[in-house]
């Protein structure tokens, strides 16, 4: 059978600045397990893009292989998607971004797809500061092959299968920080209030934006001994601060007490209001961010929120000094030097 979302909608659904309802940003109905954290993330992506009033065709969504990588079918049905091979989404995104710098590239991956088979491509997309949003739906296990431990499973954590994981885990945020990532954040699929503004901020960021989202696997890794279960994450998540996202065109309505928040203007003119909840943590200082992650880890906590932000680093197109027109719009007259040039080259080879 095929899955189709019901077409019935309330006649007065709110529309965004472009006149689109949230429905215009939805995809086909999810085939993931009921209660899967990934579906909440899909929902957050839909809301974030709708609220940002981004025309659906200005986004390209890309993924690898796995439960997480199936989700692009379930959101942004009017955007082109590319479900690539396992662990290789970053390379496809790199090529796509090189071809057209004007689109927004939204990559979706899982912990198996990113931290194991795709570790190489993940790290190199970071070092190049590729202008993309990279969302990891992180459940600590391989869901689609029935629950094997992944490389982000915490040491000692046990999935439904029962054996505690004997290996140390890879912390994707810490890894990204180490590699020079310019936007690093972590959230929880069950906390949309935090996740949606983070996704918006990630989209506004020019450069590589990591959103590592702990997203419990209800079927294989939601048991008592797992550190990626709903219960565990709810109890142990600790936000380092809050992020309010104000899009470029919107008036700032909320009132912020002076001294309680930091205002950050993103490249597209949007504004982030960051409110720190923790003393001695500075999300604009890489070393501070790294030690905050380590501190939380040692305390058995899951640090969430905006971990690090650097708005000054050039993205790959700037580094390569490419023309501002998308490369895929250049024509023969821009690209073909003409026969007279070949004649000169020929002459130099005689």
């Amino acid at each position, binding site marked *: 059978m095929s899955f189709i979302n019901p077409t019935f909608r309330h006649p007065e659904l709110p529309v965004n600045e472009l006149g689109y309802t949230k429905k215009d940003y939805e995809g086909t109905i999810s085939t993931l397990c009921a209660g899967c954290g990934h579906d909440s993330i899909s929902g957050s992506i839909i809301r974030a893009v709708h609220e940002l009033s981004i025309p659906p065709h200005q986004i390209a969504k890309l993924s690898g292989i796995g439960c997480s990588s199936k989700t692009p079918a379930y959101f942004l049905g009017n955007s082109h998607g590319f479900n690539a*091979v396992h662990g290789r989404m970053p*390379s496809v995104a790199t090529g796509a971004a090189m071809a057209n710098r004007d689109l927004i590239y939204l990559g979706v991956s899982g912990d198996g797809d990113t931290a194991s088979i795709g570790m190489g491509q993940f790290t190199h997309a970071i070092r190049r500061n590729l202008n993309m949003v990279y969302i990891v739906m992180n459940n600590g296990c391989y869901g689609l092959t029935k629950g094997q431990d992944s490389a982000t499973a915490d040491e000692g954590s046990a999935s439904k299968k029962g054996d505690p994981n004997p290996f140390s885990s890879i912390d994707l945020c810490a890894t990204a920080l180490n590699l020079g990532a310019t936007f690093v954040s972590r959230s929880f699929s069950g906390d949309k209030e935090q996740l949606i503004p983070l996704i918006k901020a990630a989209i506004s960021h020019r450069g590589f934006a990591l959103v590592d989202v702990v997203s419990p696997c209800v079927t294989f890794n939601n048991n008592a001994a797992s550190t990626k279960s709903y219960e565990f994450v709810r109890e142990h998540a600790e936000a380092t601060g809050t992020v309010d996202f104000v899009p470029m065109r919107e008036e700032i309505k909320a009132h912020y007490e002076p001294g309680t928040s930091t205002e950050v203007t993103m490249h597209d003119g949007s504004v982030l209001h960051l409110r720190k909840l923790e003393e001695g943590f500075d999300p604009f200082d890489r070393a501070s961010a790294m030690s905050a992650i380590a501190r939380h880890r040692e305390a058995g906590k899951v640090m969430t929120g905006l971990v690090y932000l650097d708005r000054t680093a050039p993205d790959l197109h700037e580094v390569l000094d490419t023309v501002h027109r998308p490369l895929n719009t250049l024509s023969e007259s821009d690209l073909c030097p003409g026969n007279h040039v070949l004649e000169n080259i020929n002459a130099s080879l005689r």
Partner: protein
Amino acid sequence: MKSIESVNEFVIKFANVNGTGSASANNMFAKALFRMGLPVCPKNIFPSNIQGMPTWYEVRVSEKGYLGRRGGVDIILSVNPQSMPNDIQEVEPGGYFIYDNTKPLDLRLIRNDVNIIGIPLTGICNQTYSDPRQRQLFKNVIYVGALAALLDIDFAALTGLVGDQFKGKEKLIKPNIHALELGHQYAKENFDCPISIRVERRDLVGDSILMDGNTATALGCIYGGATFAAWYPITPSTSVAEAYETYCRRLRIDPGTGRKNYAIVQAEDELAAIGMVIGASWNGARSFTATSGPGLSLMQEFLGLAYFAEVPTVLIDVQRAGPSTGMPTRTQQSDILSAAYCSHGDTKQVLLFPSTPKECFDMAAEAFDLAERLQTPVIMLSDLDLGMNDNMSAPLSWDDERRFDRGKVLTREELNEMERYGRYEDVDMDAVCYRTIPGTHPDKGAFVTRGTSRDEFAAYTEVGEAYERNMLRLMAKWETAKQYVPAPEFTPAARPTSHGVIFFGTSEASSLEALDYLAEEGVHLDAMRVRAFPFNDDVEAFIDQHEFTFVIEQNRDSQLRTLLMAEFEFGPDKLKSVLCFDGTPISARNIRKQILQQLPGSNVTPLRRETAGAGKGESA
């Protein structure tokens, strides 16, 4: 001893130590002969090493116009004591062994059937130069000067080349010309010049150029409209990406802004390189990667995705000797099968087989049209011999009226007119469907590209019938491809014959030469050069028309023959193999010998002067 007597028809081989600057001196030698109007065929035989190992440079001069390897060496110029014992053994009887006699030659090496000429190259250098680097570099230039006297090379052609080579670095011109003169003078004073093998000016090269295939390929990518290249360094394909960058810097700068009309990413590995190319092509930019056998192996999974998801993808494979790391700096045509059926599952990939730099240029440009017309990967199979050696070639040319064939791509306006868009609907009944580029239309034409099975509307499905329908359409598209890929070229024999010969790529020149030898001996063969896969019907008809056909190729496993048998179901008796896989380009003598051995009633190979010693260094 009878010395070989020859004007403009010989093979000379330089034996050097790599990393000593010999390549540019040897190049100068070959190009001087080319500028004297003589067809030349230089081949660099080099180790997988940066400094200190033996390296050779073989130059064939042929006023008959033969541009392949002949086999055998008439003159060896050896400045590498390490390889001397083998080098001297390679000289044809009556040939010349020229060496640096600053240290005396080991008496055990001396052959009585070879002319031995000693020139104290190191001695001259030590006397003239005090700087050790100069002593090393100018030694090479000095022997080129000596050869000019011995072979009667036009000295002005050499000095002209020095001027060209050091344009912009004028203060280097004088010392180089001085070094040439030192060698020239020594040879004039100490030997009867010219020797019995020599050159004379002719007018036989017309408007030909001398260039390497990789540079031509890179230019083809530029003219073909590639705006993006992703690559990972691997011999012998590296110079494709490097030449692309060099020429892009000159030819692809936006005049208004000074910014680049291209992007190049050196990827973390070949998997990423092909992934980037697929991503860029999917997003509407012409893009390519260049690699060699090991890289092709790594790209297999992605190439299956591109085949199945129908993403135009251009890949240049400059083949080298495998398997595994094999001989990274030696040539072979051994990726035929792994490229033709590249990836798991039922896959077939379009292949192009260039045989000259001109064809590298043409086919590279054409690859982008084919890939977009057919919405599938196109793999151009060059090889080290073609890619990294200077080859004499027709000049490159481009029709300024030519427009890129972007294939079936829907515009925003066309999407507006459509009721429902189906990415994999075969609207035109040629099995090629319409694609859309991301960003084209706000609410029409979007779909998810995937490697999993899907229906005509790109929706995921595991329904067997839908999967099968799609696989059969891909097979029908393969039929469509036959009318677009380059057709084979035929060279009929002078007399009617029931036997044929098939060759492709860099085996062409040696094959044509071997056919001349055979015709002189009364053996006539119709020839066909295959230029692409899928094979079109003419290829099948050619094999059908002949009792049996030789398939000449440079690999162990008769890969093209296997491919022909698999595609056409010919029995093994219809196709006979002529092979060379020792890492050197196949030679005309080798081909002749193998064909004669396999002809009915030709159990004995007739001996000719040229065949003596032809087996050396060659597989038979």
